[in-house]
């Protein structure tokens, strides 16, 4: 009897342990999911932070930032400086190339970090705004001023986006943009001129092809968005303006039926017909295509500002980066640039919003804009920052900065954030463009066929 009773107790205990294991595994507590993140402090415990004290900020401030082609040197510096100014504040960094995925469970469980830099795979600002994850900071930013007294909102190259009648959910931190890169040294050696419009670009590519027997243009076929953002969007903007560009991306049927859309695609078809596009482009990922460019297997590549920094370890010493906004414009018209702004925001559920806002205020200064250019080879989204005297800034960047700040040379076109419903259409349109683009560049589809498919897709989505 004793034995039987003991066995019963044993099975009861065993079943209880099993049940507990099951419950633990099925529970919604996701706070332990970000163990892979770069944490310089303790884990968030979900309890509200203490309010800021008079002698500086205190409590804990969690910052999430993506580390990609621009590295993390700048972030380490500004966070370190902010910490020095606020010794009572504990700063927890969540950073890395996969940080958006790693922090996903925190966002899903409504326990996000306080500050988020929105960049990299797995981050989508439109989605975050639509789902109420970002704080409306309109009132806060309207009062912010630069050191010289200029309102911060007037100091951006590409302005902060106002949604739903003036609400601001993020600040435009990094002025990224796509354009065409070439090797200035190589061009000088061969007396090749940098293009200024589509005609000069195409003739330049034809000349390079004849003289070197290479296909001058390379892009990654595995990630067609490089061509879409780097060539097609500036081309659409140059042909029909900002509204036209946004309408096309948002699947407005009438926009796809406008003659400008076909004209742009005819230019793309001309590139394919002239066989200036690398025949192997469809097989390459972005790194392979960038390597081929550095090795002079090609002469032009559409990539964002991060290219020199991302490829610095593989760049031959005699290569000098040259950059131009994509020359898809007509002769005599300004070059078109569509900025791809990377923003920073405060999460709606921030536990230390005061420190988060203070951090945002802290980073928008000329000093950090200079440091950003020096450490990343890219531009912080602040106007009138003179990089010419900064010896740590690469030469190509000084030229780009001057160009961007000169409205006569370059026309900036903005891609507006659509509302949540239109965003769904925009995703499908982008996917369709990516699919069809490859076939046009491979010479398997004509410009007319492309426009026809996109028009039908837009009609289907807008039904």
């Amino acid at each position, binding site marked *: 009897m004793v034995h039987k009773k003991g066995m019963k107790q044993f*099975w009861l205990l065993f079943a209880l342990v099993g049940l507990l294991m099951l419950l633990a595994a099925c529970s919604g507590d996701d706070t332990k999911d970000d163990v892979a993140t770069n944490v310089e402090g303790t884990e968030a415990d979900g309890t509200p932070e203490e309010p800021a004290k008079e002698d500086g900020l205190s409590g804990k401030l969690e910052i999430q930032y993506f580390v990609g082609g621009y590295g993390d040197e700048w972030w380490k510096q500004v966070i370190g400086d902010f910490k020095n100014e606020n010794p009572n504040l504990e700063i927890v960094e969540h950073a890395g190339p996969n940080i958006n995925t790693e922090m996903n469970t925190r966002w899903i469980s409504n326990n996000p970090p306080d500050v988020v830099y929105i960049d990299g795979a797995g981050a989508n600002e439109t989605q975050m705004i639509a789902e109420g994850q970002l704080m409306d900071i309109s009132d806060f930013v309207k009062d912010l001023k630069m050191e010289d007294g200029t309102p911060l909102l007037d100091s951006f190259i590409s302005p902060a986006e106002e949604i739903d009648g003036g609400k601001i959910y993020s600040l435009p931190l990094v002025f990224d943009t796509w354009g065409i890169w070439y090797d200035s040294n190589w061009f000088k050696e061969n007396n090749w001129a940098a293009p200024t419009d589509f005609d000069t670009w195409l003739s330049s590519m034809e000349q390079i092809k004849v003289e070197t027997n290479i296909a001058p243009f390379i892009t990654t076929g595995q990630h067609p968005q490089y061509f879409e953002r780097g060539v097609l969007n500036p081309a659409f903007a140059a042909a029909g303006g900002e509204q036209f560009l946004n309408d096309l991306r948002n699947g407005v049927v009438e926009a796809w039926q406008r003659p400008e859309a076909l004209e742009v695609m005819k230019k793309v078809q001309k590139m394919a017909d002239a066989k200036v596009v690398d025949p192997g482009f469809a097989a390459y990922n972005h790194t392979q295509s960038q390597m081929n460019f550095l090795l002079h297997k090609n002469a032009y590549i559409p990539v964002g500002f991060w290219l020199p920094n991302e490829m610095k370890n593989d760049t031959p010493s005699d290569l000098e980066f040259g950059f131009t906004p994509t020359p898809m414009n007509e002769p005599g018209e300004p070059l078109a640039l569509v900025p791809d702004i990377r923003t920073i925001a405060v999460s709606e559920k921030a536990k230390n919003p005061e420190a988060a806002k203070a951090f945002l205020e802290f980073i928008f200064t000329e000093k950090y804009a200079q440091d950003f250019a020096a450490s990343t080879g890219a531009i912080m989204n602040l106007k009138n920052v003179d990089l010419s005297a900064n010896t740590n800034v690469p030469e190509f960047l000084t030229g780009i900065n001057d160009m961007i700040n000169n409205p006569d040379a370059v026309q900036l076109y903005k891609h507006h954030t659509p509302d949540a419903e239109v965003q769904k259409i925009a995703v499908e349109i982008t996917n369709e463009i990516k699919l069809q683009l490859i076939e046009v560049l491979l010479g398997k589809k004509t410009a007319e066929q492309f426009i026809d498919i996109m028009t039908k897709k837009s009609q289907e989505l807008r039904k």
Partner: protein
Amino acid sequence: MAQSAKQRYLFLAFCLLPTFLLFLVFTVYPMLGGLYYSFFEWSGTSSVKTFIGLDNYVKLWNDTIIKQAIFNDFFFVFVKVIGIMMLSLFFAVALTQLRIKEAPFYRIVFFFPNIMSVVVIGILWQFIYDPSIGLVNSFLMKVGLTEWARPWLGDMTWVLPSIAIPAIWAGIGLFMLLLMGGISNVPKSLYEAADIDGASEWQQFWRITVPLIWPQIKTSILYIIITSLNGSFVLVQVMTGGGPGSASEVMGSYLYQRAFEDFQFGYGAAIGVLILVVSLITVLISQFILKKEKVEY
């Protein structure tokens, strides 16, 4: 006796329970979770979810890319089953029945890809297929077949066979070993008797070897089908990302794109359910086709 049987069952249940619990937690629960999420519109990045019933499945029904992906998945299943089984059977027979001194060495060589990560295999073959520096095009040019050289992974016609080759290459070793085990267990006396009766080697292979290792062949085919339907994704993602266009898209890569790049997690979950259903149906059909009486001599 009854008491003893009961205790034995209890002991077996005790041994199986942890595995069963793990199976529930890590297999059944996520599967049910996937099914649940497939009825929602959900970005997968916030707690906001909207119940939309069967809308994701209706969208799936009208999606042309998923049809292409299913076709591509079955292409991989078909060529992998044929390619892997033929080659692994050939090498298994060669290494067991022909007296090759270096057989142990070849066993290691053939098995080697199985210990490599699929990602590494994908990158390795990307280099082999590279249009400008790749081995394949260099070889073709060296032997005067310049017009045959092409961007293999960027060619819409050739991309699927180009991915299938490393998939077959990486799969041979494991199944070769499995079949070798089966062949080693076939009694030598059967071959000796067949020799005396004047049966050719080909006849011995079809009448003795294949029937007696049928359980291993069947297991191998089923395993290739299951792993191909669920596992082609990694190789495709690394080598082509589903491109050019959607030429090499498989259900797994499309799921990844929709769920994690387009932030349509609910739709991705519906694709996941589709993969499960397609896999189950395929395995059931395969089991029915491969059903054969066990042969004993």
